[in-house]
């Protein structure tokens, strides 16, 4: 099998169909090898670009590994307190109703510390888009159990695996939010496979379009790999995601847009 040279664009007639990184990304991220979060950042930024929202978007970013994205996202952004992004987004959207407002939060941020914020914002029908990066652990602090950790998973605070008796059950936040009045769009994607990435991107696009149409609260939960916090190798990430997380958190549109 011949190795193809890949150090410069081909000289034969061709069309570029994928770019290194979206124009809105200002630099490299510093996340672990095989982390799923940068993939979501990419599709999010691509979506903002594609929807023409570049100069009227305000992002609110929580605390987790993705927190460092505030340095490389070329949109106006508030780095807020752990868990509070939906409340901050509320203040922002109410004062700037013409902007597209989104939050970027992890499972620790949204489903642990800020569970109340997201549910209340959803019930309040705030017209904002929340994006949840669910890797089932606190990645940033080294892999402790969050409320979304699946049963049986070992973390630094569930040493023999999460046990329902001792540690309780995972909370399927998207399913809960999907059932509230006041909600415009809820979906759950995953970035373990190329198809999953593409579908996730469509979900994020739907959520923003729903916001632009004023349909109410939007949530896109994205299952992301955290090999570091899962104590698996990077290549094992997607399989682990499919075999453990997707079983607890089935993918799909949990609340499609009313118009669609």
């Amino acid at each position, binding site marked *: *099998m*011949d*190795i*193809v040279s*890949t*150090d*410069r*664009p*081909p000289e*034969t*007639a*061709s*069309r*570029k*169909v*994928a*770019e*290194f*990184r979206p124009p809105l*990304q200002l630099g*490299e*991220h510093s*996340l*672990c*090898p*095989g*982390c*799923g*979060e*940068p*993939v979501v950042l*990419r599709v999010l930024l691509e979506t903002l670009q594609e929807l023409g929202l570049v100069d009227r978007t305000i992002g609110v970013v929580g605390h987790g590994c993705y927190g460092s994205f505030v340095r490389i996202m070329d949109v106006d952004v508030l780095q807020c307190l752990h868990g509070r992004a939906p409340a901050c987004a509320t203040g922002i959207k109410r004062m700037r109703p013409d902007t597209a407002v989104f939050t970027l939060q992890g499972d620790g941020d949204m489903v642990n510390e800020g569970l109340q914020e997201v549910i209340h914002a959803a019930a309040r029908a705030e017209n904002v888009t929340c994006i949840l990066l669910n890797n089932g652990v606190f990645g940033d602090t080294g892999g402790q159990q969050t409320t979304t950790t699946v049963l049986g998973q070992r973390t630094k605070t569930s040493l023999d695996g999460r046990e329902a008796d001792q540690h309780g059950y995972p909370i399927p936040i998207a399913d809960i939010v999907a059932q509230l009045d006041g909600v415009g769009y809820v979906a759950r994607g995953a*970035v*373990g*496979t*190329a198809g999953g*990435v*593409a579908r996730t991107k469509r979900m994020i696009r739907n959520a923003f379009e729903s916001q632009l149409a004023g349909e109410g609260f939007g949530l896109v939960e994205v299952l992301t790999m955290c*090999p570091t916090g899962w104590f698996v190798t*990077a*290549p094992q*990430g*997607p399989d682990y995601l499919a075999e453990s997380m997707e079983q607890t958190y089935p993918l799909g549109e949990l609340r499609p847009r009313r118009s669609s």
Partner: protein
Amino acid sequence: MGASRGTLVIDTERCKGCELCITACPPNVLAMSEQVNTTGYRYPVLHEGCTGCTACALVCPDAVFEVYRFENER
């Protein structure tokens, strides 16, 4: 491996060796290098048969790939 309908530019210095692209490639035309980049990671090399499907670029967390699709299949 059939003929290539597409090809890549691989920015090997950005690669962190996670191998997500390897399993993502439908025709299985990516493999990890023996060499390491200056950060010490192995990176993907492309063999003939790329379809330009962009799967590798979609899954790569580190924006290592540019994908090109040939106007005429080579």
